[in-house]
């Protein structure tokens, strides 16, 4: 915990320094000097577009140049030295443990913002739910949409599979330690034979309440049938997420080894991503910039 606080401070400082710097930075890379990059699947567009911009590559060339091996493998590669910088979600307890065992300290720096959003059917008249109400719904205390100013219909609060990223966020940043009710279940054909009981998927019926992350859910292609719920009256948008007005925000991070020299290529790339130019490219790539 102490380590994370220190990192947060370092990050804040880095952000301030970078935001004071002029729009563009004179960061020049060649394919040979570009740091070894890895990361999650969700950060591939950011990584490819960054490489394309800094190495003057075509999108196709960037696609061949950048290879992300998914979150956990990226952490492993960073710790073992196979990668110099990774673009990922924050480290899990397992990954922190792995780093500790390898005697590696990680520097975790937010590079773009993310948010946790709640979904309902577009026909549902309920537009806003408070933080407290969300907790009470998922504790099983609020069970009818009338309690939120909606129709006299049961609320079906869908959840995500255990240990999935969305479910972990739900437990950590929405429920904050409160016991979450049992998820609605459904019978599905098992892979070999028979039926198995699984967590029911959000079906977008007029009774349904579900959740997702902003980056993927924002377009929902054109949101013909699904809408985001305002939380405490704040709609999740690029602006409210950026400003922190929307209550449930998180981030995608760049992670480097803390002992990276100050003038290392990994640090240079991180600094560029935090620059105005880097943040502009992040926004153009579909992410919510830090500022």
């Amino acid at each position, binding site marked *: 915990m102490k380590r994370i606080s220190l990192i947060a401070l370092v990050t804040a400082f880095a952000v301030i320094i970078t935001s004071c710097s002029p729009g563009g930075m004179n960061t020049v890379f060649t394919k040979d000097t570009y740091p070894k990059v890895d990361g*999650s*699947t*969700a950060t*591939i*567009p950011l990584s490819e577009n960054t490489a394309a911009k800094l190495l003057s590559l075509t999108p196709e060339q960037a696609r*061949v140049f950048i290879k992300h091996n*998914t*979150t956990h493998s990226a952490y492993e590669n960073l710790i073992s030295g196979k990668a110099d910088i990774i673009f990922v*979600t924050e480290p899990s307890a397992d990954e922190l443990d792995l780093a500790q065992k390898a005697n590696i300290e990680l520097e975790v720096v937010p590079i773009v913002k993310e948010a946790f959003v709640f*979904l309902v059917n577009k026909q549902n008249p309920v537009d806003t739910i408070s933080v407290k109400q969300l907790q009470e719904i998922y504790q099983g205390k609020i069970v009818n949409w009338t309690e939120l100013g909606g129709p006299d219909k049961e609320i079906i609060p869908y959840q*995500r*599979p255990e240990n*999935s*990223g*969305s479910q*972990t966020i739900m437990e950590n940043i929405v429920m904050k330690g409160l016991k979450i009710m049992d998820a609605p279940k459904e*019978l599905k054909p098992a892979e070999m*034979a*028979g*039926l198995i009981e699984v967590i029911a*998927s*959000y*079906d*977008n019926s007029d009774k349904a309440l*579900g959740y*997702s*992350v902003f*980056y*993927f*859910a*924002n*377009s*929902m*292609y*054109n949101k*013909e*049938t*699904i809408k985001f719920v305002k939380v405490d009256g704040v709609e999740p948008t690029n602006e409210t997420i950026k400003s922190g007005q929307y209550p449930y925000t998180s981030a995608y991070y760049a992670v480097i080894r803390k002992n990276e020299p100050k003038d290392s290529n990994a640090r240079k790339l991180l600094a560029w991503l935090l620059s105005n130019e880097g943040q502009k490219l992040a926004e153009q*790539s*579909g992410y919510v910039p830090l500022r």
Partner: protein
Amino acid sequence: MIKKLSVILFFACFIGLIGCEQETTVLEIKGKEVIKTPVEEVKAIMPLKDRRYVYHNAIQVEEKNIQSTGQDKVPKTDHYPTISGLKNIEVQDKINQRLKETAQNLLPQLEEELKNNGKNDIRLYEHKYTDAYITYSLNNVIFVNYSARVQMPYNIYNEYPTYKWISEGYDLNTGEELKLSDLFRPDMDYKKKINNYICQYLIENNYDDYSRERMTKPFQGIREDQSFTFDLEALRIILDEKNDEFVSREYSDIISIPLEVLGDDLYIFDKYSEEGKSIYQKEKLVKKLLPNQIEFKADNMIEEGNHKYYIGITEGKFINVPDKNIEKKLNEMVACKYDVQGFIKKAEKIEGETTNSNFGHYINIFTNAGGLLSIAVSDEVFLGSHHELYKTSFNYDFNSNREIRLKDIFIDETKASNVILKHIKKLDLPISEEAIQNGLKETLESSDFNFDEAGIALNLLSMGEKLSSNQNWAWISFEEFGIENIRFLN
């Protein structure tokens, strides 16, 4: 504006007067210029829920298998179909050329992709394959799956894609390739409908959870040249290299949109065919039944056992049955009424550590299409060396609202009777011809059988008591009766 409207109205009347002309047009006035745009005439579309059947295409398919070795010395196998039986030989040749070329051209595309991955080494190739299969052939349309594969040593096989497949559909009237839009009424926004379905699918299957690592960015919507294939169950959207927000894998992901979701927006069944107008040398067409709305939803599946016994029970309910009385009857039928606890007690009493005791309650749906339903509910008991099978069949025609007897299946009952007699005699069962003939009279009047679109399953118990439990059912293919003698296929 009024002037413009008057001109449009004038032309609309003019079109009405010459309505017997072949082509409908929209006239737009731009300054002094009149722009004439042909508009596709939409035929009447039968609502999907009312459509009981479509027709098999009366084409013959011959499979070609060609072995060769190229300049690279790598052995190659090409497999592709050729069709015959169309009246229009020019169109037939065009399709056959397309089938051959598309199959053969896929391999160079795969090799190019391997080359672009920077990892291909032709010296590692052990064999090259191309394959093409007709996967759908109804109402004057065919869909064909093409694939290419390069076989490499197993230890490097998993390193990078060595397989590529595509699907194409063709109109047998013209030989032209179908676009996704050709499947739908021209006046509907098919992209919106498909995109909405895919969004929902992605949420349901947690594609939007970053920890699943299946997508690099949000769904971008289907592409203009979206890959797809079609069959009687679903429109299948093939996520290939064009859908680059999805993480690419060796095998393209498929999102299947059930036909009932697309409903009356589907135009493919009406667009390319016309009742009574055949494009085939063979005039008589055979029906292919379309799935009913009726569904069996299993809500209880028990699979348990120990060293003494094994139990497998499936129970559930039929839903969307058009007749409430029949629904009630079906749901009573499928409930397990066997004394399972009694069976367990008996099985546990059998001496020895392992026994062959098992009990199964199964629901077998033979036909659920074309307004017809044929089901069997079985309780099968093996208790030590003792074997019992209790089987109840139910056959119903929702088009005429009556139970189906075996004789209703055939146009010529006498001819069918002879075929059954001949078939049973060939089985060499311990029953006399007289017993078979007497039993057959009873069987033809009964509903104690099952059928699908390929044949019938007959209960032979009424023909002889000497039959053992594995001899009392016979499967007879409709080919033996002659398809022209099967009432619901003609």
